[in-house]
């Protein structure tokens, strides 16, 4: 369908156009939500989140390029993707409720200066999340995990990747080509999501406290949609 040179450009362009035409509408709410939880308002958390997301795309592209089998690979992945969607839904709901102060039983844990009952690393992270603060280092793994959320645009990119990989000389070439194609696709989506994140950051710089309730409601709604879609996809 496409020659070997144009397909790389095509993937970059597809990501770029899809970023503005698809990702802003679908992933924009996720970006809007995590912006509220950001402890660090600089550019770095946005980059880390998006690099995490792109890391997942590259892994999936490499996997598809190696196997050359879209359906077999995706069917295996879908179990994991559904689980990610459900878990993400639950976590986003809890984050929203925690952010809005609507989880009374969490207040003794997240309030105050001591937090003595939470001493382990895991509970420290939980405390951070439910108190509306995410350390910078959390954004990269968060991007990796949320990169697995089922997305039609990503599926289409993976279909193109698998089609190109079927023509690869060998499995290693397929792996590298698949990874590169999805890297270009992911980089193409970067400008749109960085712009949305930065825009929300800038205008909300002085408004964090006032934004809490609104963002909390929004996060709960989004979490419910994720959860319902995740459960529906199982049936």
């Amino acid at each position, binding site marked *: 369908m496409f020659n070997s040179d144009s397909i790389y450009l095509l993937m970059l362009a597809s990501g770029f*156009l899809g970023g503005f035409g698809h990702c802003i509408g679908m992933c924009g709410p996720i970006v809007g939500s995590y912006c509220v939880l950001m402890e660090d308002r600089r550019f770095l958390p946005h980059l880390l989140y998006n690099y995490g997301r792109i890391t997942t795309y590259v892994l999936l592209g490499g996997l598809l390029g190696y196997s050359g089998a879209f359906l077999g690979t995706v069917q295996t992945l879908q179990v994991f993707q559904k689980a990610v969607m459900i878990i993400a839904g639950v976590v986003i709901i809890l984050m929203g409720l925690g952010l809005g102060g609507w989880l009374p039983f969490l207040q003794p844990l997240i309030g105050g200066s001591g937090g003595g009952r939470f001493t382990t690393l895991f509970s420290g992270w939980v405390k951070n999340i439910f108190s509306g603060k995410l350390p910078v280092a959390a954004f990269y793994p968060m991007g990796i995990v949320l990169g697995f959320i089922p997305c*039609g*645009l990503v599926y289409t990119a993976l279909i193109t990747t698998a089609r190109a990989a079927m023509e690869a000389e060998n499995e290693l070439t397929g792996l590298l080509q698949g990874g590169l194609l999805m890297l270009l696709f992911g980089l193409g989506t970067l400008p749109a999501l960085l712009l949305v994140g930065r825009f929300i950051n800038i205008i909300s710089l002085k408004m964090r406290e006032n934004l809490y309730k609104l963002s909390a409601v929004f996060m709960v709604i989004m979490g419910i949609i994720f959860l319902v879609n995740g459960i529906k996809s199982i049936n």
Partner: protein
Amino acid sequence: MKGTRKVAILVALVCVSLSVMFLASRFQLNEEPAAPVAKVQDTQKAPAETGGEKELTLTIGPKPIQTMKLLSFRVQLTGYREPEQLIVDLSMPGMVMGINRFNLEKVDANMYEGKSIIPTCSTGKTLWLAKVIIDHEIEKKVLFNVQ
């Protein structure tokens, strides 16, 4: 304080806009394409366009048409000169879903076939548009639903 209020209104507007975009895509408020197209009925087989002696028929199978399954796209041309390149381009009306286009190979007299996969849309939308492109000159459109 006034400045703070203005910023609050701006932030609220952005959040509301994002919410509307998100929810609009969920509830399929924008799925009718602008161009008139022929709809594939329940049989999933119907003439896309008819002009004089010319007829183009797109058949998608197996039925029912399902997402994330390997699908066969067969095009039968009647009255057309033999094309050098026949392409099917799949898209979703009202939603950018990336570029999903592929070549069809001749399998019989006037019959061409290609295979592809239609991705699942997490919004739950099921309406897709197939454009059959003959030699980059003639473009016929067919709407169809997937399960």
